[in-house]
């Protein structure tokens, strides 16, 4: 099965520090599912954003879970070069503007016009949007992370904002699904 995998710079697993060598098979103990090689379907991508995106080949059996897939054996095939700084920035900005739209009806009335008219994230930052509502506090956070160019933080807080207006985990996952569709289109992956 061909899947996707985010890694830190240099093809390094971000949590274990394991350094992958492209093309070389890596094998985990078959009876240790917690140590299997993890990868993403397109729908999982927003949950695992990192510096490098790779296509990976996974050997059977492949266990499909809610936010990732896993296999006892896998290898890196090639970098998805489309995931670069400019696409990451565009994704981050898209998440931030969407968060603005989600938050807008929940902001303190005195803030709404200014936030609706803002032509840039810098302009939103100049407004004290956190004042008076939880949605405003999340929006302020989203804008802060977006301006710092942090896609993982921006998209996560955007999904939390979506979930905070009453939809709970379903709303969180729906926001992540929107983000996944944006990434699939932006990166031209299926």
């Amino acid at each position, binding site marked *: 099965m061909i899947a996707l995998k985010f890694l830190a710079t240099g093809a390094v697993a971000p*949590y274990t520090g394991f350094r992958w060598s492209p093309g070389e098979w890596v094998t985990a103990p078959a009876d240790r599912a*917690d140590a299997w090689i993890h990868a993403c379907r397109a729908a999982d991508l927003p949950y695992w*954003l990192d510096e490098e995106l790779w296509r990976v080949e996974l050997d059977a059996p492949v266990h499909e879970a809610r936010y990732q897939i896993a296999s006892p054996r896998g290898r890196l095939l090639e970098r998805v070069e489309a995931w670069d700084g400019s696409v990451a920035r565009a994704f981050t900005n898209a998440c931030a503007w969407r968060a603005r739209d989600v938050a807008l009806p929940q902001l303190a009335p005195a803030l709404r016009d200014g936030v609706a008219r803002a032509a840039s994230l810098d302009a939103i930052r100049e407004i004290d949007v956190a004042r008076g509502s939880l949605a405003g506090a999340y929006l302020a956070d989203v804008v802060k992370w977006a301006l710092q160019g942090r896609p993982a933080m921006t998209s996560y807080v955007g999904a*939390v904002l979506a979930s905070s207006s009453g939809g*709970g985990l379903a*709303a969180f996952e729906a926001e992540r699904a929107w983000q996944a569709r944006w990434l699939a289109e932006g990166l031209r992956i299926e």
Partner: protein
Amino acid sequence: MKLSVPDVSCRELVELVTEYLEARLPVEERTRFELHLGYCDWCRTYLRQMRQVRDAAEELTEESIAPEAKSALLAAFRDWKRGSGGDEP
């Protein structure tokens, strides 16, 4: 308000970090743990530091501890046990 998110909180991550490093977390709990690491720089740093502590501690032997350090540690543990109401005099 309790947030509806799929990952653990920073506080939960701190409580689970030893089990994570010792590969004792069930698969679903490990996923929740790593979902949190996906966006939280502070917890990534904490995990890295805990891994370094564990690796350093694995290299320690009783003989490798200087006598003064060993005495200081034993004294600290004695005081700590008294303070926590232990059963030693």
